[in-house]
């Protein structure tokens, strides 16, 4: 009888120990899985972040390089037109407008969606069609910068234009 009781006790102890072992193993497994998932997530995040950063850097560099090329090309066109204007030295507004018209034709500004404009000391601007109103951003010219570029929008439409100006005032 005593033996039976003792064997039952030892059986219970073994049983408890085995359950505990299973629990420990499962817990370790869970901790392991959770740890792995956490590591995996942060690894993936870091990798994705690094990858995206690198892509963005690459795209931005390409964009900037492209933009700089375009801007440089526009400045070259502006300088070129200015040299021709200095060479031509029109003596009247009519001659000046004729020069602008001819220049626009020779450079094919229409198909490039470009326009040739000039601004006088008051801030009034002129296109090949003649005198227009006041340049909205004329305050940029107040300090007589050697050259300046800026983006402008039309007043009643969401249409942007980029201006490139060289200063003739001091020549």
């Amino acid at each position, binding site marked *: 009888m005593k033996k039976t009781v003792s064997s039952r006790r030892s059986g219970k102890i073994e049983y408890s120990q085995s359950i505990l072992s299973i629990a420990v193993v499962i817990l370790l497994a869970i901790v392991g899985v959770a740890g792995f998932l956490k590591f995996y997530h942060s690894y993936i995040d870091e990798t994705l972040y690094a990858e995206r950063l690198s892509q963005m850097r690459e795209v931005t560099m390409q964009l900037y390089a492209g933009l700089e090329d375009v801007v440089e090309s526009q400045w070259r066109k502006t300088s070129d037109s200015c040299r021709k204007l200095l060479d031509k030295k029109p003596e009247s507004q009519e001659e000046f407008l004729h020069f602008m018209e001819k220049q626009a034709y020779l450079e094919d500004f229409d198909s490039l969606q470009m326009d040739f404009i000039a601004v006088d000391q008051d801030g009034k601007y002129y296109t090949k069609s003649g005198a227009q109103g006041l340049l909205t951003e004329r305050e940029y010219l107040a300090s007589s910068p050697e050259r300046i570029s800026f*983006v402008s929008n039309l007043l009643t439409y969401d249409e942007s234009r980029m201006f490139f100006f060289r200063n003739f005032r001091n020549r």
Partner: protein
Amino acid sequence: MKRKKFIAWALTTVCTALMLAGCSASESQNQTADKSADASSDHPVITMNAPYRNMSTFVDKVKEKYPEINLEIIPYNGQNTSTYMLDMRKCGEMPDIYFITYYTPGRFDDEADFLDLSSYDFTGEYVQSRLREVTLNSGIYMLPMGYNALGITYNKTLLDENGWELPDSFKELEELAPKVEEAGYTLCLDQLQYPGFGFQFLCNIADTGFLSTIDGQKWQEAFLKGEVNVSDTPDIVENIKLLDKWRDLGMLNGNGTPDNDTDTKAEMIKGNTLFLIGNSNDLSSESGAEDEFRLMPYLSEDGDQNVFVLNVSRYVGLNKKLGEEGNEQKLEDALHVMEVLSTVDGMESLEPSQVNSRLLPLKDAKVGEDSYYADVLDELNSGHTASFIYTGWENAIVPIGETMLDYIKGNAEVEDVIKAFDDNQHLITEDTMDTCTTVTEMLDMDTCAKLVGICFAKAVNADAALISTNPWRYDKDAYEMNREGVSGALFPMGVSDQEIVSIIPTGWTNNIQTVTLTGKRIKELIESGYERSDNSVSFPYVLVSKEGMEFEDDTVYTIVICGASDEVKEEGNIQDTGVLGLDAAKAYLSQFKTLSPKDIVWE
């Protein structure tokens, strides 16, 4: 066996709980998001001032999208909107969402007063060039609302019927003027109700010459700094002398009832006048208008510098206090309101009756064929524009404007106008105003109504005063709130003419009016309030009388009234006392070195 099952179940639960632990955070976030969209939530109140805007339609738009938002409107329909809004800011009494009429980035400490709006999605809805005008150190603290192009209104029907051509230059206008007079019509009427208009018309005409050029802009900056004056600058003297040509031709005159813009507009609508210089755009949409009215620019001598003057009607910003700890919900709600405001629908709802005469600074905005500006779009886009001149000049606008009004009416010469610039330059450079008293503790709207009642009634020896007030009322059908009563408050600061005019219903130029009514009728009016003809709601009266005075039902009293319906005007035989409201208020307030609510007593 049961224990095994229990342990297995427990472990499974633990495992499931652990495995799902990662998901729980995102679920709780979702619950928070759901809560913010809960229509029954008790969100904190956010305040928004509304200078001369009936916000009822806008409030509906906000409620439609965000029903949980508690938006409190603080209306202002007084006679000096710009000063009142600015005083609000100077005294730290700004609401959460703050509207102002004029704004120059950096003139005051924007970074200390407002949240930077540059990184919010709704800011991306605005056209880039409009944003550039309000950008300060890469930040955006105020966003522009709709804007007007101001010019000269002309009666197109009259022009066409007589076979006249619209003048394209001042020279052409000089040729047209005698023909108009010969035909028996009036050449031009001017709206001269406020001194600010005098200053504005002067600048608008000067913008057709030197003032709007690059050198003119530099001169303005130098004048505001006190580095130059008018009489020493030949270009600006020559520029201001352009006024003589406009007056000699008859474009500047004091014909009709120039001190009442509404009457002047009504006279124009009759159809016997060709031009109107003033700020009333789109007269064709006015009731009773049968003729077609259009807009032309201020004309330069040979037409090469004709200008429309661009004026942004309102700017809006968010009070920086919304960014403080504990205000997270208020900030979220205020951003939602800004989001609604930054749409074409939202912006148009601020002024449903002005849709055709406003240009919106939004990318989605289109100028339709029926727009008031449809036939001048080319001119607007080709640079025939100048900016409205106001900011920086605030302290000198009234004295210069008053001299200009005298000039327009023929009571002063152009030399007087030039002198007015130079004599008042110190008000700008020293940033000072002549004050008659100093408020030490804020006087709210009802207290101001009491103050106005006392000083008006005393000035005309009336028995009492009935002063209507302007609390917020939801009324979609009304064009505006109550502008005949007291609107706004007096803030703790020096009180100059500008502050007085901001609260008195008589404004700069109107006299005190009285009616004679029985005590019974007065009591009835207190009950019913002021019923404006174009509003379906009424506005409360504040009855002001000597301490302890009782009104007998059958006794007839002479009382000052601010806000009277046509019926009350008739039955009370309304009388103009000939006493200027501004003078009466100034004389009364000058008795006090300092002023607080306890001083507002009629003993």
